[in-house]
């Protein structure tokens, strides 16, 4: 019976990677990494799982499915590498790559103490203390091990392929977690889902060397170990959970999600009267060891005991201790005494909690959840990041496809057959849905739970409609933990009986299904899964595998143009400027300039210092002479901007310009006002109707310098901006303090050199104050008169 429905899964996974059959060269690479892990993790569970089947069959099948899931996941992440090159494709990962490179060249301690004087000039950045080092250490370790075995790969290739390899590990840990929650078949389905689901692929394609790539694995693995330790109540599993949590803390700031979700789980279990010794052991150990371990990461430091987003964990810890103490007292005291004591204790605790809440409210508003809402309204720099925008409905479907529709069913199954760990997954689902709604970026935390719950839903459906007519007496929902619960907690309380009633109810509708209905439903489900696989491949190929370093455009005949302007310009910087030249640009490009051009930058994607960014924003949005003063004080040698008006690239600096103005206004409200950059009608326009402040600011001048002379095609006037579909308003742009140093082939990147101060200061106008005669002005050279002309 098990075999018959599991046979569908190879179809499932093969459908997903069949479009990528061209990528055979990756298979061998995957294989030698996959084998030991997959085999190791599965040898145990295959043996214990099957009752009706020989253990060998089941474990072989599970192994094969997981291996194929890994392979499918790995290969579907390779689009970008195959179409372009094996390089780091995104903006942010360039820093990760650069620091990994530093780590692998100079060793761990040098990395820990690395003071990067090339970033945030002239402030510098302590890299070791301001990163989550997990990613770099992982990549560095793999590189080290491979080199130890004389597999001499370049660190770049390790970085590029790290995320796809880790997606396989994520699939396995999702399998393990789902198996703990439901059963093995659901686990396999979940592993297949997570391997190819776009919501996760978006952050883990080859070449996106980002924290999330390994963090989702750590997240799932931590949850698996947590569920395991709650189930068993063993310190061994809990310590494993702590170590995994430690890895997660070292890898991603999203660890806060774990340290809030696990206490929430414990708290809800307490409310549901599901307290047990297993829970007590698991959480007490986890909190103490996890706290100590998490504080070992320099970037995290004392945050776990200081900031409010970690307070829930501490509060639940205290609550759990109190609860356990009360349980202990309950045994020792009479009912009357206990009630008095209980009343006293509760009121005392309530008082303490109340005071704490008031204290926290008044001192720290930086609670994570409040923060994202608060920050969005008040801090433009956070709001300006596209990842921090709220999620649209479309992107739920786009990233999760059919899973987003089926996962509530899985959630319902879990709630209906509730036990300790299903409470956990329910809470996980609910909180992740909320966060994913707040921020696009947090879609990533929703994806695994959606995969798991959908797998449970699909698995249950298949069990009903694909299974033999002979009913199983013990549905998989009936897990051992409830019995454990009863056995371990002894006579403290007993809730297991209630749960069992639900289970017996569940059996009823299975009776009397005709073969037609069964096959129709099965076919329908299989169709859905196939469409899901097709959708995943399509989304991965079209949406998430286009690198931002290299742009591609397609002609009418389908041939492809590669616009390699970014690398062209960075390479120019690398080759033609002084080694210590300081390049000013908007912060989006800081990591790339540092990584590819190896030049000092003023601000970069680690947006830790708002005022410094505001200074750069102010320089960009002021007029040229005011900007020159700022640039002089910051020792700027070159200014780099991105201009998409020639090719119609919408992510350019003019489109980001309002954020620069807003951020600058936040720090310098007297000099920069956002309203100055709008027309009286409140529009942001670059054509003749645009506001004069905009038409004379440095960013506008640098973007459109010499652009007025350029006619792109015969249907449009000269100086027609394709991105904004407007003819620019200021075509006669003269620069006084800057000169054009480099413009890339498609004008995408423009680099300006900041001139030194003039050797002399020629007169720009006649000094005579009264009735200046026009007689001599004609003799002065035109170049001296640098009047702004609008």
């Amino acid at each position, binding site marked *: 019976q098990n075999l018959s429905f599991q046979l569908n899964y190879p179809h499932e996974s093969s459908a997903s990677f069949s479009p990528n059959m061209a990528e055979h060269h990756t298979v061998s690479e995957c294989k030698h990494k996959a084998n030991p892990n997959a085999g190791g993790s599965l040898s145990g569970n295959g043996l214990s799982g099957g009752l009706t089947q020989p253990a060998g069959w089941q474990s072989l099948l599970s192994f094969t499915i997981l291996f194929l899931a890994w392979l499918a996941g790995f290969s579907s992440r390779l689009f970008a590498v195959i179409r372009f090159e094996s390089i780091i494709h995104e903006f942010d990962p360039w820093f990760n790559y650069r620091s990994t490179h530093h780590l692998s060249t100079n060793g761990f301690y040098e990395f820990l103490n690395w003071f990067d004087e090339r970033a945030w*000039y002239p402030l510098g950045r302590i890299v070791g203390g301001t990163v989550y080092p997990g990613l770099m250490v992982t990549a560095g370790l793999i590189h080290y091990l491979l080199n130890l075995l004389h597999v001499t790969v370049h660190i770049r290739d390790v970085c590029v392929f790290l995320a796809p390899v880790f997606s396989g590990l994520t699939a396995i840990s999702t399998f393990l977690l789902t198996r703990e929650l439901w059963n093995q078949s659901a686990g396999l389905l979940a592993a297949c889902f997570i391997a190819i689901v776009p919501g996760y692929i978006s952050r883990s394609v080859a070449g996106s060397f980002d924290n999330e790539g390994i963090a989702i694995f750590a997240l799932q693995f931590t949850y698996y170990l947590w569920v395991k330790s709650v189930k068993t109540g063993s310190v061994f599993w809990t310590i494993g959970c702590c170590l995994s949590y430690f890895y997660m803390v070292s890898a991603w700031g999203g660890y806060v999600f774990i340290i809030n979700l696990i206490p929430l789980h414990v708290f809800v279990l307490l409310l549901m009267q599901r307290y047990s010794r297993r829970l007590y052991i698991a959480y007490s150990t986890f909190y103490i060891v996890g706290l100590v371990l998490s504080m070992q990461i320099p970037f995290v430091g004392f945050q776990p005991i200081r900031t409010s987003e970690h307070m829930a964990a501490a509060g639940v810890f205290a609550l759990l201790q109190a609860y356990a103490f009360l349980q202990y007292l309950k045994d020792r005291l009479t009912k009357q005494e206990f009630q008095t004591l209980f009343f006293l204790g509760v009121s005392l605790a309530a008082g303490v909690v109340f005071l704490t809440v008031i204290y926290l409210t008044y001192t720290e508003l930086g609670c994570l959840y409040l923060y994202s809402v608060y920050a969005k309204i008040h801090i433009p720099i956070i709001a300006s990041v596209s990842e921090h925008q709220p999620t649209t409905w479309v992107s739920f479907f786009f990233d999760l496809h059919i899973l987003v529709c089926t996962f509530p069913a899985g959630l319902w199954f879990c709630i209906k057959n509730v036990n300790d760990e299903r409470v956990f997954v329910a809470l996980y689902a609910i909180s992740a849905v909320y966060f994913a709604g707040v921020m696009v970026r947090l879609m990533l935390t929703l994806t695994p739970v959606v995969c798991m719950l959908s797998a449970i839903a699909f698995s249950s459906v298949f069990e009903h409609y694909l299974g033999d007519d002979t009913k199983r007496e013990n549905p998989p929902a009936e897990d051992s933990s409830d019995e454990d619960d009863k056995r371990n907690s002894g006579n403290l309380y007993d809730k297991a009986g209630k749960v069992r009633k639900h289970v017996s109810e569940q059996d009823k509708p299975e009776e009397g299904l005709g073969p037609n209905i069964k096959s129709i439903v099965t076919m329908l489900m299989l169709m859905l899964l196939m469409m899901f696989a097709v959708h995943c491949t399509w989304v991965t190929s079209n949406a998430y595998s286009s690198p931002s370093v290299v742009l591609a455009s397609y002609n009418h005949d389908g041939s492809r143009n590669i616009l390699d302007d970014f690398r062209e310009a960075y390479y120019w910087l690398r080759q033609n400027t002084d080694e210590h030249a300081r390049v000013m640009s908007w912060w989006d490009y800081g990591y790339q300039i540092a990584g590819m051009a190896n030049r000092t930058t003023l601000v970069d994607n680690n947006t830790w210092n708002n005022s410094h960014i505001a200074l750069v924003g102010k320089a960009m949005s002021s007029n040229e002479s005011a900007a020159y003063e700022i640039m002089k004080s910051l020792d700027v040698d070159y200014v780099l901007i991105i201009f998409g008006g020639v090719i119609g690239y919408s992510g350019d600096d003019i489109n980001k310009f309002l954020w620069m103005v807003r951020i600058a206004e936040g720090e310098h409200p007297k000099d920069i006002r956002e309203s100055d950059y709008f027309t009286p009608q409140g529009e942001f326009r670059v054509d003749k109707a645009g506001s004069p402040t905009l038409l004379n600011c440095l960013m506008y001048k640098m973007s459109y310098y010499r652009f007025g002379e350029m006619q792109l095609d015969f249907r449009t006037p000269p100086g027609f901006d394709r991105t904004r579909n407007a003819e620019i308003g200021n075509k006669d742009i003269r620069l006084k303090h800057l000169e054009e140093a480099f413009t890339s082939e498609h004008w995408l990147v423009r680099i300006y050199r900041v001139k030194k101060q003039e*050797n*002399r200061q020629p007169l720009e106008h006649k000094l005579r104050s009264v009735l200046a005669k026009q007689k001599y002005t004609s003799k002065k050279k035109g170049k001296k008169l640098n009047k702004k002309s609008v």
Partner: protein
Amino acid sequence: MATDGSAARDTNCMAGPKRGRRVTSMSLRLPGTLLSYAVFVLSAGLAAQVVSGDGKTLVLLDNPNIRDTHSVFFRALADRGFDLTFKTADDPGLSLIKYGQFLYDHLIIFSPSVEDFGGNINVETITAFIDGGGNVLVAASSDIGDPLRELGSECGIEFDEEKTAVIDHHNYDVSDPGEHTLIVADPENLLKAPTIVGKPTEKPILFKGVGMVADPDNPLVLDILTGSSTSYSYFPDHPITQYPHAVGKNTLLIAGLQARNNARVVFSGSLHFFSDAFFNSAVQKATPGSERYPKPGNQELAEALSRWVFKEAGVLRVGAVTHHPVGENTPPAAYTVTDLVEYSIVIEMLSEGRWVPFDGDDIQLEFVRIDPFVRTYLKKNGGKYSVQFKLPDVYGVFQFKVDYNRLGYTHLYSSTQVSVRPLQHTQYERFIPSAYPYYASVFSMMAGLFIFGFVFLHMKEKEKAD
């Protein structure tokens, strides 16, 4: 491909002629500093100039007579070792720059009325000459031609129109024919800068010529000699119908410019100022009871001006700059916060054709990261200036800056970039006294657990025995 973020390929080649020049003439790398680097910005003129008063000088004259009427001035220059080449301003063979090289170090333009320079000299070549570090002495007069006026405006000075003169009805010489244009300028109105105008004297200065005004916002122009508060500039033979070009103290008689590359330019409104006649004639203000001087101060002032403008006086340079932690000799790759650092700089002055240590007590050092974090006086210590100070408890990329800008002296600017890094993980204090209670609690806990374990095991055994 630029994907390899590995060791930087050092490229010192920089695009653009300006930057290129700066690198070749002014930057040098301190030995042993990998991360810190130093750029010494010295006067570009110094690098090119020979270390003595002599230098090839081109003198442009309206007519050869001027050589005789101004013989005292020229002889003094020749005696000081200048190699003077006299040419008329419209000589067709004139040339200042040949194959990109300057043929002369200095230029004297004593040809106020020239309308077109001969040869390939024009205002642009002269400004290029200045921008290349050449020094220019310009004398105008009431028949000032357009090229000089243009040159003036290129340098931030505006001459009054042709045929105008500076007029002062209160401070004119007794020998004045009646237009009150032979002015007796009070030495009070000289710039208070002995390197430019020489030792302060009582002797008045004779002046007859055109006036100038300068942009008050221009920090490079020096008002060397201004008119008195009663002077103005206008056509001497016309009735005044317009507001005069320059009035009172705004009227500049002699103006100077020290460009940012330390090239020096002096504009004198009067060619007669340098003449033998003005050097030697007696001077007395026409106002009754004023003192009569047998000789005016012209000769001394002219000599001081020529010393300054031709870089014999007030020329400084930065020599070796060293910095290192106290107790060490070489600078580290990066300083650590709160290090005690010693900084020293050699500053030399050109005197009698030789570089001698400069003697100044007001030289300051700044330790700058956007804003100065430390500002301190440098103490003279043998041939060099040095100071010891504690670095601020702030990490970042800092610069040691010496920015010495004094009237009459070369603008001295030296900036050395160093990194100041925070403490390394091994540099923090290992045991801090205030944490001893915690250390004690840790060890007592360990001991307690051990004892408890021991007792627990022991007790259990006893129980069984019971």
